[in-house]
């Protein structure tokens, strides 16, 4: 009790010597799907009501240091630390330079929301898109940016790593998650582990994004991404992105084009031996007046996906056989062309809230080893179908 009293006396006296003022800001973006109506050919139509996106970002700053934490509250939260889409610190002590360290988004794309739905590059699809290159988020990273609007450019270079690593034993061998339906085992996945910091002896990722401000209206972006996992048999993955934005008081235009190559090991999720993908997005918002605007957005995605070959093999005295699903897709080549067209009307309710009403048409064409119009293709969702969606959404940012 005596010690407590001493502490109580000392704390208010000493704390002012160590305490400084700090500034914080909490910002959020919410998009509510007020009433969506979706119909995929062959399925029943359905209404969807709920939360489209719900993100909160907390900024804290003091002198030349800043920190930001972004909570992705609409994401899949059952995964460890998944709620933190971003959590990083920034040092701003050198003019025109920023040093960032933490977890977050690796910048290389020119991401832009469509008319009533997110871009294919951030998972926006009624029918299901098959691209591996999405927004590269939740990565451990170290980044340096140089430039500013006044200099006419900003370049951000990032070294990054995945927060999920494939687990290896002491001999460096991958560990399987397997089942034993009969006498032989079948592999369903690799064992993975969540890591808070990546080890460059296991994996390394590089990213770069150059934003060039040609004038007040035009901005061009050039991005590259490279990722190499040093586990035996893994090929490097890479992508290139070119984008443009035009902005005036009358309209806004956005363009993004991406080429990417990716390869994964046979039992990883969304596996592929070699996947090449081409993505193009073109959109515009035309402001009719201060309250009303028209939004048009079109996206196309072409994916060529070479599947792994799955056969029976013996490792450490254990026989593994492929599952029927693995046998079905073994060695196949898929060519998937998906596109969507969106149109919407926006009404600005207040300075920071808007209501969007519009429609979308989407179509996917898939061939397997050159055979078209198959009703079912293993691991390709809605392989040869089309879909439409009518949507009314309310967005609020603060």
């Amino acid at each position, binding site marked *: 009790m005596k010690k407590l009293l001493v502490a109580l006396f000392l704390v208010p006296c000493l704390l002012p010597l160590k305490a400084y003022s*700090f500034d914080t800001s909490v910002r959020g973006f919410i998009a509510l799907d007020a009433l969506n109506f979706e119909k995929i050919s062959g399925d029943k139509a359905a209404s969807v009501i709920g939360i489209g996106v719900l993100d909160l*970002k907390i*900024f804290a700053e003091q002198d030349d240091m800043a920190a930001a934490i972004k909570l992705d509250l609409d994401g899949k939260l059952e995964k460890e630390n998944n709620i933190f889409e971003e959590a990083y610190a920034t040092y701003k002590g050198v003019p025109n330079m920023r040093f960032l360290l933490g977890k977050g988004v690796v910048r290389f794309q020119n991401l832009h929301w469509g008319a009533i739905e997110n871009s294919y590059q951030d998972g926006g699809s009624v029918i299901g898109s098959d691209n591996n290159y999405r927004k590269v988020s939740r990565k451990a990273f170290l980044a340096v940016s140089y430039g500013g609007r006044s200099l006419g450019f900003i370049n951000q270079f990032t070294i990054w790593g995945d927060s999920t690593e494939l687990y290896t034993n002491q001999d460096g061998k991958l560990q399987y998650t397997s089942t034993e339906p009969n006498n032989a085992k079948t592999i369903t996945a690799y064992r993975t582990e969540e890591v808070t910091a990546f080890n460059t002896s296991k994996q390394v990722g590089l990213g770069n994004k150059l934003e060039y401000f040609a004038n007040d209206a035009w901005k061009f972006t050039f991005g590259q991404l490279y990722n190499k996992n040093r586990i035996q048999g893994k090929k490097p993955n890479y992508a290139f992105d070119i984008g443009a934005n035009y902005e005036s008081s009358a309209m806004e235009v956005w363009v993004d084009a991406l080429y990417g190559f990716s390869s994964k090991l046979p039992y990883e999720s969304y596996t592929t031996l070699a996947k090449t993908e081409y993505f193009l997005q073109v959109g515009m918002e035309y402001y009719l007046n201060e309250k009303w605007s028209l939004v048009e957005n079109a996206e196309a995605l072409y994916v060529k996906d070479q599947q792994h070959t799955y056969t029976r093999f013996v490792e450490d005295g254990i026989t593994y056989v492929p599952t029927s699903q693995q046998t079905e897709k073994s060695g196949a080549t898929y060519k998937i062309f998906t596109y969507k067209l969106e149109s919407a009307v926006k009404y600005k309710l207040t300075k920071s809230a808007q209501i969007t009403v519009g429609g979308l048409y989407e179509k996917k064409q898939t061939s397997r080893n050159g055979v078209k119009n198959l009703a079912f293709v293993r691991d390709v969702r809605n392989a040869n179908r089309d879909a439409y969606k009518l949507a009314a959404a309310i*967005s609020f940012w603060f």
Partner: protein
Amino acid sequence: MKKSVITLGLILTITSVLVSCSHQTPGNPDRYLASEKCPTKGEYHSYFDEVEKCIDKSNDR
């Protein structure tokens, strides 16, 4: 003992908040005003970047 720790923690928290608040300088409210002045359009992917750049600019002044 447990009660003492909780009490001490509570006092530390309240003291920190009070001291931090008392150290706010007159310049700080400008930062919040500056953030509000920055035009942030309702585009999901650029919104938080715009806010961050806005906060940066207000710091530079």
